[in-house]
């Protein structure tokens, strides 16, 4: 477990208080997206394309409009034309025109489930009746789903205006290949020539969904005066505001977005699907509109992450030094451009100090739902291929898998493959922690295997606002504009309390709507505790400076003579022996006499977010007669900088590992011949259940990031990067067969074992 290094003075950071919003969540009072209603609201529903690729020739809504009780019917024609421009609303820049067309199709339906019309009615039954009465004339087109099929010159082209970027010669023929990216270092040919051993492999993964248990839900009201209110479950209320404004051509200040509790996101709720439609329906229907997705819609119509085909070639010396790497990543983007292949390229070798490499990434549109972010987007996919290949190297050279990672490990001061030098990283420390773990010493039984893999994520900072409001009695409210998915309210209250020197129970965190606090980028990119925490600490520091100024005024002494410690101002002025200490409550009660209410808000662009590293160990047993995999033990070590609330940091590590295990063993989108998803439900889209997993031992390694007042590094995304390969390498150990294709389902393992036995 973790202990607080070098900061024995910390009283709150590093402890495990009960989260301040916990009571509502365990008593059922917390209000999520579907738990909110507005007076007079209508029920909104979406008509979705049954075809994977079709031109929309005509949509006749007359019958639907005529049904009594149906108040609004809209199609793409009712939404404004949006210019093609990049916007930094989510995190990676996204194209607003594509976003608008993904919210509601215009001339073409590009995946089964693509929204083509929407209705609002006085009841769900009337809304269903309206959907059934809409007549859409489709011209069905050939579709393409598998990424290499989509790259072929004769593949059906989704977008006639897409010409591949990043090629030497500018192509003259439209293609599904949106862009080539990548970078290289040194002389790859020379590197391979000098290698004693070379491994080469083709690896594939399937689209997988974030799998949050709460379906998307919203209630939206378009006021008669054009002022809108949106209640939405999302990873960022300001993101919802901005995207609704862009899609509908409104001003941000006319859209007030109230953040509902969010029932899981993992990157999948960093964009909008329903909110712009609910607003447009509300305007047309003259009443608020509530929309809730079915689970079927969540799978068919909201972004999974990319399916991929990857080629990895590694060359190494006999002592294990990797001297050359040639990596090619082909990722599905779904209906519109923008897969995370660039991040896949940048993270593929991020744990390795390799002199010669070339990494190429292809972003390819396919007739599948537009890809959305999924926890360290792109990194788990690339790591599955690279970490499997490194495992093959280790086996060929008969070197311990941890040792070969140590041999090639990046260290602080070393250069990252994507360019800059690393600072204050804790990578080799995670390897050491894994080697020292009890798990690593447990002997394996028959049909059992142990797999190991490592992972990296950048972690980002970005724009955040934090505000501290001292109440009249000296209790404190800390307001931030980041939705709390995994317990961030607790860490905000803890950082505020630590800085103010008051008990954490005295600090109440709140998450106001977009009209009640300064802007923040959304909760994602493992940034919230880092960047929003930094803003909270700065706001708290301004309050402390203000409190010292006020105490000095009350004692009539210079502010330098005031010491603030443990929530009390004490006077150091020898000339004022009778100056009694002034606790926060006293200063709050006399705030009027010393200048007014005690409040501070800090809005920053937090720079210097430190990258995170993780090393995972997984033991499995494989039934030789059926190919079923049982996960016996799982240990995950991760550099977390400094854990503010260790329980929730462990929770991120355990949750990420569990998602990775599901991704490795059972999760995948299955499409039929017509490009329709065959398993849009939790029965046949198999996320791990409680009995599938052992306890997951999270080892928190703390190498503090000096750029944060309490040494914080992002922790949320690293833990999903190693598990795909950790499980795959364990299955390799248990069966003696390398299976380079996910998921490792029993039929696939059985077929591979049979083929190996000849």
């Amino acid at each position, binding site marked *: 477990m973790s202990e607080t290094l070098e900061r024995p003075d910390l009283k709150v950071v590093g402890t495990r208080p009960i989260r301040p919003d916990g009571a509502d969540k365990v008593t059922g009072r917390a209000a999520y997206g579907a738990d909110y209603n507005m007076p007079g609201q209508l029920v909104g529903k979406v008509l979705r394309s049954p075809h994977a690729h079709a031109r929309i020739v005509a949509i006749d809504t007359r019958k639907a409009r005529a049904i009594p009780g149906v108040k609004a019917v809209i199609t793409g024609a009712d939404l404004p034309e949006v210019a093609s421009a990049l916007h930094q609303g989510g995190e*990676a820049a996204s194209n607003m025109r594509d976003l608008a067309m993904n919210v509601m199709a215009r001339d073409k339906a590009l995946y089964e489930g693509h929204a083509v019309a929407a209705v609002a009615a006085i009841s769900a039954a009337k809304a269903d009746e309206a959907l059934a009465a809409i007549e859409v004339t489709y011209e069905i087109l050939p579709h393409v789903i598998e990424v290499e099929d989509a790259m072929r010159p004769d593949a059906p082209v989704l977008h006639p205006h897409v010409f591949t970027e*990043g090629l030497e010669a500018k192509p003259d023929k439209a293609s599904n290949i949106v862009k080539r990216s990548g*970078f290289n270092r040194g002389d790859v040919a020379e590197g391979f020539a000098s290698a004693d051993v070379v491994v080469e492999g083709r690896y594939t993964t399937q689209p997988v969904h974030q799998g949050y248990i709460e379906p998307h839900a919203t209630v939206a009201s378009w006021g008669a005066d054009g002022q809108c209110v949106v209640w939405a479950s999302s990873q960022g209320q300001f993101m919802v505001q901005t995207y609704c404004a862009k899609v509908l051509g409104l001003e941000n200040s006319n859209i007030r977005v109230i953040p509902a509790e969010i029932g899981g996101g993992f990157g999948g709720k960093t964009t909008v699907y329903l909110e712009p439609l609910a607003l447009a329906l509300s305007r047309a229907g003259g009443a608020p509109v509530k929309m809730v997705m079915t689970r079927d819609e969540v799978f068919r119509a909201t972004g999974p992450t990319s399916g991929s085909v990857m080629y990895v070639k590694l060359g190494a010396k006999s002592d294990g030094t990797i001297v050359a790497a040639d990596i090619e990543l082909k990722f599905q983007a779904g209906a519109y451009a923008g897969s995370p292949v660039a991040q896949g390229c940048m993270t593929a070798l991020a744990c390795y100090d390799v002199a010669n490499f070339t990494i190429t990434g292809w972003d390819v549109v396919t007739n599948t739902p537009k890809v959305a972010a999924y926890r360290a987007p792109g990194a788990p996919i690339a790591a599955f291929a690279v970490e499997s290949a490194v495992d093959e190297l280790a086996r060929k050279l008969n070197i311990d898998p941890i040792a070969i990672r140590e041999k090639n490990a990046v260290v602080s001061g070393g250069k990252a493959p994507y*360019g800059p030098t690393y600072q204050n990283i804790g990578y080799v420390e995670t390897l050491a922690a894994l080697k020292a773990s009890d798990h690593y010493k447990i002997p394996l039984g028959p049909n059992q295997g142990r797999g190991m893999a490592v992972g990296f994520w950048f972690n980002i900072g970005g724009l955040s606002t934090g505000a501290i409001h001292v109440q009249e009695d000296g209790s404190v409210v800390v307001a931030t504009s980041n939705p709390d998915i995994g317990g961030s309210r607790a860490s905000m209250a803890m950082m505020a309390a630590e800085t103010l020197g008051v008990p954490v129970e005295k600090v109440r965190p709140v998450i106001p709507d977009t009209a009640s606090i300064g802007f923040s980028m959304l909760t994602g990119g493992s940034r919230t505790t880092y960047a929003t925490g930094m803003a909270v600490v700065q706001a708290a520091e301004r309050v402390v400076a203000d409190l010292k100024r006020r105490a000095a005024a009350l004692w009539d002494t210079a502010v330098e003579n005031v010491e603030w410690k443990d929530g009390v101002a004490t006077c150091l002025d020898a000339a004022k022996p009778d100056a009694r200490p002034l606790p926060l409550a006293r200063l709050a009660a006399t705030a009027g006499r010393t200048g007014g209410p005690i409040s501070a808000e800090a809005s920053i662009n937090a720079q210097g977010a430190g990258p995170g590293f993780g090393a995972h160990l997984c033991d499995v047993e494989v039934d030789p007669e059926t190919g079923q995999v049982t996960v016996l033990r799982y240990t995950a070590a991760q550099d977390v900088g400094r854990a503010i609330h260790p329980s929730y940091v462990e929770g991120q590590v355990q949750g990420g590992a569990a998602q990775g295990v599901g991704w490795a063993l059972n999760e995948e989108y299955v499409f039929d011949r017509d490009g329709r998803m065959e398993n849009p439900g939790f029965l046949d889209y198999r996320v791990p259940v409680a009995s599938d997993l052992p306890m997951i031992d999270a080892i928190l390694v703390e190498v503090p990031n000096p750029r944060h007042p309490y040494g914080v590094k992002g922790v949320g995304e690293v833990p999903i990067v190693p598990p795909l390969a950790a499980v795959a390498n364990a299955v390799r150990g248990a069966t003696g067969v390398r299976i380079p294709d996910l998921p490792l389902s029993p039929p696939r393992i059985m077929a591979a074992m049979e083929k190996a036995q000849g």
Partner: protein
Amino acid sequence: MAHVTLNAECAAFTGGATEFDIAADSVGRLVTELDRRFPGLGEFVEQRMSVAIDGEIHQDAWISPIGPDSDVYLIPRIGGG
């Protein structure tokens, strides 16, 4: 003079060159100088790139300072899940 390395995507604007020494004490001034030398590169960097200064990644970094002999890298913007 800060040592600046562009990534492959920027090289399309510079005719392939990726390494420069540029006297600029802030990201804003660096971007302005790059745009002066290679028209269009400035906006491209602003929209698509993050700036790593001595190992630290800055996003939307116009006012971030650059040291006299800083090591500067332009890398694709990083999103998260």
